């Protein structure tokens, strides 16, 4: 790089920096947004259901039904409401005041002693299928513990023929926060990276300053570099804030190397900034660029990155689409780096994919950016 080119680049970066300082929204995007979003998501997103309201209907209360009810009371997953009438319970289910009904018919005690045993009717509200499955699982747990307690009390052998020992690796307590926070950092950085740069080129076009730039000796490569450098620094700052919050506020362990984390994040940030620049260069108006940036980053990063929905369960066509999202690779790398350590077989391919994205996006922006007017 020649001395003149370095000087021009320095000028461009300085101009960009004073523009960033003038309108505080860029700094807000880089530093305030990660704090705000991590706080909201870290506390707000949880799939762990506890104290689920359910209706327990015993048509003929006696010692047997009371024994089962006591198990529901003891479970931390349920907040049972006792009702004597099934119609009343069904109404509560329809109005979504309870998530499920456990119904013990009037002949419960009698049939318990007969062949085949007594039925326990369970009706769940299936609207939220995932919660419904969890509730069914919890009911099974309560039922099983009731059976065991009963068997012990009567001196019988335990009924269950399987003894399942569950091990959850990398996150032994299944703390959803441990996996959510690395994923959230990836999503937040996707948003920040694209938002930071999505408007910068379009703004130059819209305000006519791009034409002014064209008559100067700067090359378009220098313009691009001048845009990337300041926002890269801002983005890394935001990343630092997010990681610090993850480690010290949410208590997520970082088992991998911080330097590797920095390297992967830098690659990802280049890809994200490149995508924003590409949108900005192609759109030429801030309105279109802004819409496009939000539409192409936020929902895809949230829904398709494997952060909340499992990629392996999606149909092949959709899985193929997820491959063109940088966020997917970043989510996988961060989850591994934080929770499993430096697993090269995961980190290297993902980092390579991120490098390819960075090269493609920045290269495409460079190609589209010509010293030419339409």
């Amino acid at each position: 790089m020649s001395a003149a080119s370095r000087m021009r680049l320095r000028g461009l970066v300085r101009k960009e920096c004073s523009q960033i300082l003038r309108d505080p929204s860029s700094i807000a995007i880089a530093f305030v947004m990660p704090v705000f979003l991590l706080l909201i998501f870290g506390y707000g997103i949880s799939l762990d259901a506890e104290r689920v309201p359910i209706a327990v209907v015993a048509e003929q209360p006696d010692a047997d039904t009371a024994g089962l009810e006591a198990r529901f009371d003891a479970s931390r997953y349920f907040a049972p409401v006792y009702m004597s009438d099934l119609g009343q319970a069904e109404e509560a289910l329809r109005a979504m005041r309870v998530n499920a009904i456990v119904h013990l018919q009037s002949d419960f005690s009698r049939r318990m002693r007969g062949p085949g045993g007594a039925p326990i009717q369970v009706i769940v509200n299936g609207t939220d299928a995932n919660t419904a499955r969890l509730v069914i699982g919890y009911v099974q747990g309560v039922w099983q513990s009731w059976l065991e307690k009963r068997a012990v009390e009567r001196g019988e052998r335990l009924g269950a023929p399987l003894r399942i020992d569950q091990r959850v690796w990398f996150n032994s307590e299944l703390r959803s926060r441990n996996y959510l926070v690395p994923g959230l950092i990836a999503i937040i950085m996707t948003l920040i990276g694209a938002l930071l740069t999505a408007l910068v080129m379009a703004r130059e076009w819209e305000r006519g300053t791009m034409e002014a730039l064209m008559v100067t000796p700067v090359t378009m490569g220098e313009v691009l570099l001048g845009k990337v450098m300041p926002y890269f620094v801002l983005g890394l700052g935001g990343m630092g804030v997010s990681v610090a919050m993850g480690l010290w506020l949410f208590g997520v362990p970082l088992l991998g190397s911080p330097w590797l984390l920095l390297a992967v994040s830098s690659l990802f940030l280049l890809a994200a900034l490149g995508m924003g620049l590409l949108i900005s260069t192609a759109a030429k108006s801030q309105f279109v660029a802004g819409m496009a940036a939000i539409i192409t980053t936020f929902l895809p990063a949230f829904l398709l990155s494997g952060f909340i929905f499992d990629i392996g369960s999606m149909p092949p066509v959709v899985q193929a689409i997820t491959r063109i999202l940088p966020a997917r690779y970043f989510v996988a790398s961060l989850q591994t780096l934080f929770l499993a350590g430096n697993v090269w077989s995961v980190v290297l391919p993902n980092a390579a994919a991120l490098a390819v994205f960075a090269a493609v996006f920045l290269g495409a922006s460079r190609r589209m950016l010509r010293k030419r007017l339409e």
Partner: protein
Amino acid sequence: MWLRVYALMVKEFLALLKDKRSRVVVIVPPLVQLLVFGYAATFDLNHIPFAVYNQDPGPESRELVARFTGSPNFLRVADIAGEAEISPLLDSRKVMLVLNIGPQFTRELSAGRPGPVQVIVDGRNSNTAAILLGYVSTIAADFSAEHLRQSGAYAPARLEVRAWFNPNLESRWFLVPGIVGLLTLLVTTLVTSLSVAREREQGTFDQLLVTPLKPLEIILGKALPGFIIGFAEMTAIVLIATLWFHVPLRGNVATLYVGLFFFLFSSLGVGLMVSSLAVTQQQGLLGAFLFLVPSVMLSGFATPIANMPFWMQRLTLVNPMRYFLVVIRGVFLQGTPFHLLIPQLWPMAVIGLVNMTIAGFLFRRRLY
């Protein structure tokens, strides 16, 4: 008055639709995204890769393995011969679950003692891991029941589970109506909040203020295009949801549209409020974004509001999306009648009214 509002509305539509790029960006992505997300958004796992480490030569362990292999949720990709092979498979994410059956399994079972089984899952994604463990315990419960039946024993009580409104518990039925709300919110909020910010940045908003238009008329002229786009987009999306994804629409369509009206009223109100604060489009975009992201994440779209800490549940009360999701899911899956949804409608009306009032006030006061 209506003539002036109409004129402003026509101008808004022209500004939005005359440019090919902005036309495309308003119409195409929401429809494409519904198709993609409709397939992507499901909590139901299938073809989970798993490995079997079966140390037991007996028939009972083969029976247990067959139950996993036969389930559409699981895909057996590896058989392991030693303890040391477990960790590389899990580390590299080749499998998500390892089924480790102890050497004494069949012997213990036939002696009437519980057979030892170890299940190791990848907890890096704890949500998937929790769902996975649920599947495992269902298979285990089936196996146990079958085994007990064969040995002539029976439990004194058994569970008979039924699910109302969604008998097969397909999470897609729950998530697709949610996406309808999501995309409608996204497009309408962006269109309104960026349109005022653009006028401010380009200086044409000052010109608008010196015309005979009153703040109320400006708000109407800016909000009505959002309403029309929202209604059109929602209609298209609902058609895709019912005809393509076969999500049952059990309730009254009119109820759905009344709900949509209140929802658009409130979300456009927020959009206008945001844009009345913004001076540049970048600020408008940031503002829209700071409203959109939390309102999606904290709406109960993917994770239930009931799971949040109490103070955060309180916070969601100001989120219009929260109410609309109850309406749209109720109408779609439960056929909820109108009168039961009124408690969801009036909060949206209040949110919309408050925000529009603030926006009207700020339009006059905030000049640069």
